[in-house]
């Protein structure tokens, strides 16, 4: 734990709560996640992992305090998200082609298209052969590789991944983890996963949630 004490805190919360009607899903979380932390966010379904991620992304209103990159994710959402990369568990069923999607991301982020295609190629995606295909028509693994490329290509300070390897075959998973392990050492990586065995070599901190509370938080 000592090695991370001097590092910049990128996500901090105090008494973070989130309720849906009468159901309290996050029950007062206190978080201090720092640059260089590679976190395995684990827990059963309904533990509150996705809700926490959505709070960080500014998609939910919440009670208590939450600062991401020292900003409020609801009030300065766009500023924060310029430095956040996110890979969802379920890819969106977009009908646009891969080519149009790459242009969209390039236009939005100011990152050259080649950067995204290079990463996608290195993850084993035949990007040239996929350009004219609608994103929704790609296989689960191909979609995931492309979304990972978009997240990594923007070189975010915070990388949030919700079950990112769920759709990858073993070979692609290996390449993906190798790629992630070499990713910016100063970035905060949060991997929400059920497959703890798989990601244990990739992370240096484990945070376990259960029924809206953090029940385990330790550096490895």
């Amino acid at each position, binding site marked *: 734990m000592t090695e991370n004490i001097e590092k910049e805190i990128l996500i901090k919360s105090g008494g973070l709560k989130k309720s849906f009607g009468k159901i309290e899903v996050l029950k007062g979380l206190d978080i201090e996640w720092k640059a260089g932390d590679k976190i395995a966010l684990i827990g059963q379904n309904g533990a509150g992992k996705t809700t926490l991620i959505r709070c960080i992304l500014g998609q939910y209103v919440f009670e208590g305090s939450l600062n991401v990159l020292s900003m409020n994710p609801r009030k300065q959402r766009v500023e924060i998200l310029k430095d956040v990369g996110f890979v969802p568990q379920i890819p969106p069923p*977009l009908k646009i082609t891969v080519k149009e999607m790459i242009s969209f991301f390039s236009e939005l982020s100011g990152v050259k298209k080649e950067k995204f295609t290079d990463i996608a190629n290195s993850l084993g995606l035949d990007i040239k052969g996929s350009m004219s295909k609608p994103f929704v028509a790609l296989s689960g693994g191909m979609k995931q590789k492309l979304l990972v490329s978009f997240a990594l290509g923007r070189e975010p300070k915070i990388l949030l991944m919700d079950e990112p390897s769920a759709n990858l075959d073993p070979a692609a998973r290996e390449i993906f983890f190798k790629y992630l392990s070499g990713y910016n050492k100063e970035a905060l990586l949060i991997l929400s996963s059920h497959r703890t065995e798989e990601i244990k070599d990739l992370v240096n901190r484990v945070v376990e949630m259960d029924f809206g509370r953090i029940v385990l938080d330790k550096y490895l």
Partner: protein
Amino acid sequence: MGNKDFTSILKLDLNQSIRTKGFWIYSLLFGGFVAYMFVSGITESQIIGFVGLGRLLVTFMQVCMVIIPIYVLITVVRSIVGDKENNVMEYMLSLPISFSSFYWGKFFSKFIVIYTPLLFSLILAIVWGEIINLDIPWEFFWLYSALLAAMVFCFLGIGMFISVYTHSQELAVSSAFIIWLILVAFLDLLLMGMMLKLRMNPDVVIGIGMLNPLQVFRVGVLVLFDPKLTTMGPAAYYILDTVSRTTFIIFSIVYPILLGYLFALFGVRRFKRKDIL
């Protein structure tokens, strides 16, 4: 709202929309309808004073009045709530795109996608009319282009509002259908019923009629003709007998746009302030 993220979403949503079969069916339906009316010789027939290209355009607008509001509502109410349900929103709004840009980008994309085929159908009618040497009623063309834009804008605003406030596509579509039914019911038939049964002041009844964007559109379509009770229905006849044509033309364009904008504004306010998923 940033320009870059607004245009990115606008382009993305346009690209998404033109890839749907529904868009092409819709476009072909209206273009085909204009072509069919020419082929069937509607411009040569004369019914209750309407003749030539003017007759064709009035018929086209009457078909639009039946189809467009419900089409706009059913298409648009699913946009925001549909994006929520199928994980598009979770992903798109994890990107540096403001809520306003996302909302208005989708709004204007839908406007372009719905309005452009209608405008092209009107242009097709004019071009075809020129080719077969018909007199071109330009004042009809300009008025109808504006009326269609206003109506699409109005129902788009209402649709986006419903889409933000509902939690499932089924509920959104049902709500849209009920609203459309109420608006249809408050055309002449129910208005006259109220006037006769409840012995209400005609001005109040007509005032209610003027709040109904469908009624406003209906009267707007006929405003360039001589008001005749048999063709317009009692409410439209009374309205045009009460206010001047110019006043009504301005009202029939401005009011639906304002109404649509107001609904859209309430929609975006909620969208920005509440959970988006």
